C-alpha cells in the first residue's frame, strides 16, 4: 500500500490504531502483529488477522514509531499488543524529548 500523511490505519489482530505522520513515496507493507494494517474507514472490513506470536511486542499510546531511512513515521492513537512493522522489520520507537507545554 501507499500510505498517506494523516491516514488512520487499524490493526486486524488487536485494537491498535495509528496515524501516518510521515510517508515515503513508494509502496510499503505496514503490519501489526504480523498482519497487514487496514484503513478503518474502508467500506468492506477485512476479516480478523492471525497474530504472529513472535510479533506481539506492543506499542504505547502517543508514541511515534519511525524508520528514518524509509521516511515512514506513525503515531499510536490506540495502543495494543501487536508489534508495528514495515516490510517485515519492527519499527523502532522514536526517542523524542517532549517540549514543555508553552500555550
Amino acid at each position, binding site marked *: 500500500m501507499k500510505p498517506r500523511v*494523516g491516514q488512520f490505519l487499524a490493526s486486524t489482530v488487536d485494537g491498535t490504531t495509528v*496515524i501516518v*505522520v510521515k510517508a515515503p513515496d513508494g509502496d510499503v507493507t505496514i503490519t501489526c502483529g504480523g498482519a497487514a494494517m487496514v484503513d478503518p474507514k474502508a467500506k468492506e472490513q477485512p476479516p480478523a488477522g492471525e497474530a504472529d506470536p513472535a510479533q506481539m511486542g506492543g506499542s504505547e499510546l502517543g508514541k511515534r514509531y519511525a524508520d528514518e531511512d524509509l521516511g515512514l513515521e506513525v503515531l499510536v492513537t490506540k495502543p495494543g499488543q501487536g508489534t508495528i512493522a514495515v516490510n517485515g522489520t519492527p519499527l523502532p520507537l522514536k526517542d523524542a524529548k*517532549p517540549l514543555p*507545554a508553552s*500555550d
Partner: protein
Amino acid sequence: MNLTMVLDMAADAFGDRAVLGRRAEALTACRLRELAAGGARRIQASGADSVVYLAVNGPAFPVALFAAALAGVPLVPVNYRLGAEQLAQVLANHPRALGIADPGQTAVLTQAGISARTPQDWLGEAAQDVPESAGPAGGDAPAAIIYTSGTTSKPKGVVLRHQNLTSYVLETVEFASAGEDEAALMSVPPYHIAAVSNVLSNLYSGRRVLTLEAFSPERWLDTVREEEVTNAMVVPTMLARIMNCGHDRSVPSLRALAYGGAKMPLKVVERALREWPHVGFVNAYGLTETSSTISVLGPEEHRAAVGSTDETVRARLESAGKVVPAIEMEIRDEDGQVLPPGRTGRIWVRGEQVSTEYAGLGSSIDERGFFDTRDRGRLDEEGFLFIEGRIDDTIIRGGENIAPAEIEDVLLHHPDVDDAVVVGVPDDEWGQRIEAAVVPRPGAKVDIGALREHVRGRLRGSKTPDYIAVWEELPRTPTGKIVRRDVVRGLLGERATS
C-alpha cells in the same frame, strides 16, 4: 493534514474524557466532535465562506474552530476591542461569513451584512443538528485568519493553513501525554494566536481547557484553586498584576505557567519564581505568523538561570530560550548576511508551522522560504535567543539607529522602576529625540536626574533619554503589548501643557 485530525485522534483515543469547560459542565472529546459536526452542518447550510468570531473566550470558540475546519472554511477570530472604523475594515473582508458575537456586538455584525448569533445560540444550533458523520475538508485550505494586533502598522490578516497549525501541534506536543487530572487555564482572548494553538495543543495532549472571559488577578487565582488548574498561560502584564494584588496568591495545584506575547520584566518573573517554587515556568516566543511558539525557555532553564552566579547563565532568565526543533532560525544583518552568535540582527525563521501569506497581500516569505519576524535579536553561544524589540520601533536620532529595548532594559533594571518604555519623538534638530516614560515601583519615588545618570553610566550620552516622564501606567493592549504611538502622543501632550 486537517485540524479535524486532532479532534478525531482525541475522540478516538480518550473520547469520554472531559476536555472543555469547568468540571461541573465539562464537555467530553466525543461531545466536542458531535457539536463540531453539528456546527459544520449549519455553516454548510448557510453557504458561508468563513466564520467570524467576535466574542470572549468560552466553549463556543473551540466548537467554532473545529466546525469551521469540518466545513472547510477558515475561522476568523476578531478583536472585540477594535475601534468601530478598524472593526468595519476587518469585517468588510468577510462579507459572506457566518457570525458569532457577544450580545453587545451582534449589531456590528448585522451592519456589516453578516448574520449574527450569540455564542450561546451557536452552541444550541450545533447541538440541534448533529449529523451521523461528517467528512473532513482538504488539508491545504486556510484553517484560520488572524489579524495582527496592529500596534506598529495596520492590522494584517495572517493566513494559517491546516498544515501550519497541525505541524505545530505534531512537532511540539506529545499526543495523549496529559494525566486525567490536568486542567489548563487560558486567559488570552480568542483573537490571539495563543488561544487557537492552546485549544489544539491541550486537546491533543488530553488536557481539559478552561477559559477566563475577562481577566482579573482575583478571578484568575480563584479559578486556579477552585478548578485545581495544573497549567496556565498568561501574558506578562497579567503575571505582574497577579503578583501585585492583595488576594490570596497560593496556587497549590499549579504545575506549569507559560508566558509570552510581550517582554516579561525580570523583577516580575523573579518574584513569581520565589513565591511559587513548585511551579515550572515556561517562556514562549512566537508570532501569529508562526502558529505560536518558535522558541522556549523551559522550567529547568529558569531555575538554573535564577540560581546561577555565572552572568551568562543568569542573563538567560531574560532570554526566549532555545529554538524548537521544527524551526530553522537565522539572524541576518540589513544586507541579508547571516550573523554569527553574539551579533544582533533581524530574526528570520523557516518551518512548516510558518504562515506564508497575508490575506489579500500575497506571500510573506523570501525565495528561500524564510519569514522576516521584524524582531531584532541575537543568539548566544549555546543557542539561547535574546529578543531586542521590534525593528519598526527603531529610533533614528541624528542618523544613528537606536534600539529602544536596550535603553528600556537599563531603566527596568533600576530598583525604583517597575515598567518603562522608550520612544523616538519628532525633533527639528535630531530628526527624533529619545524620550521615556517610567512607572515607579509602588511606594518608590523616582529621581529623574539620578535615573538619567543611571542610563548614562551604563550606555552613553547619545542613548540617554532627553526627557523621562513618570506615569502611573503605560498604554498597553489587553494582550500586554505597549502601544508606542500612544506613548509618543502622551509625551507630546505632556510637553505641550508643561
